[in-house]
């Protein structure tokens, strides 16, 4: 029953939850773009029009639907079809290959960061359909992969020596944490090790979401296959997969079983954990204890859409409740409007900016000392609208555990 568009009773609850519909009159909303148009698509009538690419794939409609329809999935398929029938735009080509861009960008970080900050280049960006008015993320030469010593990225036969009861986590860092925010990645690893969890950082490529979002199913499949081959080896040796990027995590759990035609998709999906959910579970089962130093701060927590879509109580919030003196305000009503590569495209500027304004206004309502968000893209977007410091939640945990001092 789940997922069938025929369950739609047109209540418009999905429309009430659609951020794009709210600010872009050109987009008819998830009810029409999803189940309504699907009836025509099934009859072979061509209804797919350019407006289908206005959807950011925030998945808020799936989350809101009380009848088990997933409008965003119907829309994603229509988007892929639209892109396959039209010539790919340059931004679409660029972002479906973001994995390679990130790797190259890091390798030649000095040059890339210099070039992307030049005004002439930024004008060129605009010409090819990219936004030139917002900063491009800086690439770091010392990626997370490069930072981890060879001994941790051991081949699988060395891992087997581990004690069987040992907690072992294979970390899926994704592109952003690897190439743009390796310091946060290192914090995550030291926190996991602080709790006695053995961490490995397996060889990995992009999760495939940017390729999916830009209509390149073939490439998404190729990435998924590569990752699942590598991570399946770890799972079979008793490792759990942890992620911190909520969009990568969502792709691993929700999309891999569908885009991969092997059983490995299910295997990955079942064994993948949000970092904080994992810590919370270990604590509930009595394996670890939280011992936090007081942190006198007011925090606004921007919940990324793909964390919200998990449908579980926000795990980092549950952990933060145990930090003395810390006050956390949750903001999960608004999508920041960036949605990864979506926000870098000139054609989406109006939508992205309007949503960014709305999101930041409500984040600042409680005059926070800092804003936090799990998603690198959300942080990038929010920083364009505010001077308040914005960080990854892991940094709060890092400070509260007293790890920053030593």
């Amino acid at each position, binding site marked *: 029953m*789940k997922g069938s568009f025929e369950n739609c*009773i047109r*209540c*418009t*609850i999905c*429309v*009430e*939850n659609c951020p794009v*519909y*709210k*600010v872009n*009159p050109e987009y008819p909303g998830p009810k029409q773009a999803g189940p309504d148009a699907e009836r025509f698509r099934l009859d072979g009538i061509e209804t797919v029009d350019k407006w289908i690419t206005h959807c950011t794939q925030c998945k808020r409609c*799936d*989350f*809101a*639907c*009380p*009848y*088990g329809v997933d409008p965003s999935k119907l829309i994603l398929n229509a988007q892929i079809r639209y892109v396959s029938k039209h010539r790919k735009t340059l931004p679409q080509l660029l972002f479906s290959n973001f994995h390679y861009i990130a790797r190259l960008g890091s390798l030649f970080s000095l040059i890339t960061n210099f070039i992307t900050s030049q005004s002439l280049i930024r004008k060129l960006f605009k010409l090819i359909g990219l936004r030139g008015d917002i900063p491009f993320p800086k690439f770091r030469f010392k990626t997370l992969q490069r930072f981890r010593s060879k001994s941790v990225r051991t081949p699988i036969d060395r891992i087997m020596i581990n004690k069987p009861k040992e907690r072992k986590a294979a970390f899926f860092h994704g592109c952003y944490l690897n190439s743009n925010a390796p310091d946060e990645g290192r914090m995550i690893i030291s926190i996991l090790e602080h709790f006695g969890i053995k961490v490995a950082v397996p060889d990995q490529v992009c999760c495939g979401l940017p390729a999916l979002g830009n209509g390149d199913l073939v490439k998404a499949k190729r990435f998924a296959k590569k990752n699942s081959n590598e991570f399946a080896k770890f799972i079979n040796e008793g490792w759990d997969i942890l992620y911190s990027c909520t969009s990568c995590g969502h792709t691993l*759990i*929700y999309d891999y*079983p569908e885009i991969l035609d092997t059983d490995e998709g299910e295997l990955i*999906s*079942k064994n*993948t954990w949000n970092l904080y959910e994992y810590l919370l579970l270990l604590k*509930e089962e009595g394996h670890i204890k939280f011992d936090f130093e007081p942190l006198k701060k007011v925090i606004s927590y921007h919940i990324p859409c793909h964390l*919200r*879509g998990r*449908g*579980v*109580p926000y795990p980092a919030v*549950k952990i933060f409740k145990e930090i003395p003196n810390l006050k956390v305000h*949750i903001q999960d*009503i608004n999508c920041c409007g960036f949605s990864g590569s979506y926000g870098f495209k000139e054609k989406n500027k109006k939508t992205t900016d309007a949503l960014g*304004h*709305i999101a930041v206004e*409500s984040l600042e309502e409680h005059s926070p000392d800092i804003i936090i968000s799990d998603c690198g893209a959300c942080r990038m977007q929010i920083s364009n609208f505010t001077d308040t410091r914005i960080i990854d939640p892991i940094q709060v945990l890092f400070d509260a555990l007293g790890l920053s001092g030593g």
Partner: protein
Amino acid sequence: MKYDIVVIGSGMSGLMASIYLAEQGLNIAVVSRGDPICSVSSGCIDIAGTGDNTLDSITNFPHEHPYHKVGKKGIFESIQYFKDLMEEHGNSYSGDIKKNRTILTPIGKHRITSLVPLTMKHADISKDEIFHIISFKGIKDFFPSYVKGIFQNTDISIFDAGTHTTMGIAAKMDNDNFLSSFIEWIKSQKIKQKKVGLPAVLGITKSPWILKKLELETGKFFFEIPTLPPSVPGIRLYRRLKGIAGGKGVSFYGSADISDFKSEKNKIQYITIKKPGRPDYIDAKAFILATGSFVSGGLFLDKNIFKETVFNLPVYAPIDEELFNQDFFKLGHPIEKSGIIIDKDFKAKESGYNNLFIAGSILAHSETMKFQCGHGMAISTGVAAAKDAQEYIR
């Protein structure tokens, strides 16, 4: 995860139950499949629409009606509790719980209700009252000429908001600059009438503040006219209640498809939420079922078989002929009587579960359309079931 009490359903009933219980210091989770029907409602609180006086009309309700299990005192107190909560959190409601009043609908007719959001306080238009209507260029789902058809002396002004959906206009109203330009435009219209009606678009998040500013700067009284869904006042009501619950520490499980549950010795031990990846198992000492009726998916009718969709509880159903030899759209259709029959402490009769409590429109004999008692019944049975559940786990 383990909780004291798990509430299934995040509509009016479930949210009010969870807020009440969280205030008692209990560890509460709300599990829902999606957003509730109250988020597409008009935002008004119907208590009993069959007479001038709400509580008095309840006396004449059939003796099986769930209201009688709560009692007039309980009904009054729980709805007062709702009213106080909304006032405390900035979305005040106007009206007297004991009385009915009217609001203007988008087709120019009146509708009976009891409590209304402040933005509809002045919507009780009398038969020959003269007022003004502001509408928006190209707006979907609101046709001011319907109202003019009945109130022929009404003047209509049209504002170009640059967008044509109620959600879109409401989102723009939340922006200070847009609101200022809207107010300037109103002033330029030289409206003569004291009262101004407009479709319900006065902001998604800042409606009380927007209303105040409008009235202060123009000297007029404004009232919202609820529109077809998407319904902005419904969104405000749902988000505010959910926000209050979250602020009191309630945990939310969303997009949750309850695929299974485990019971032992007449007690439900845990429920299983099926999802991609691993399922979630949620333990509790007691459960409150507030999944709503047919539209909300709490009840399901398939080839003459009535089903309760989570625990497969016994469902009271009207007999066949009563059900199908009827005009389906007639008010008071017998299908409205179907639902779960409860005993005096809100447990499902003959279900065999001692720690399961039932609330809201899934209750048998509630007939919320016939008696116009939807949100009122949801609030009062939600709080009543919560009290019984709290008593049980003590």
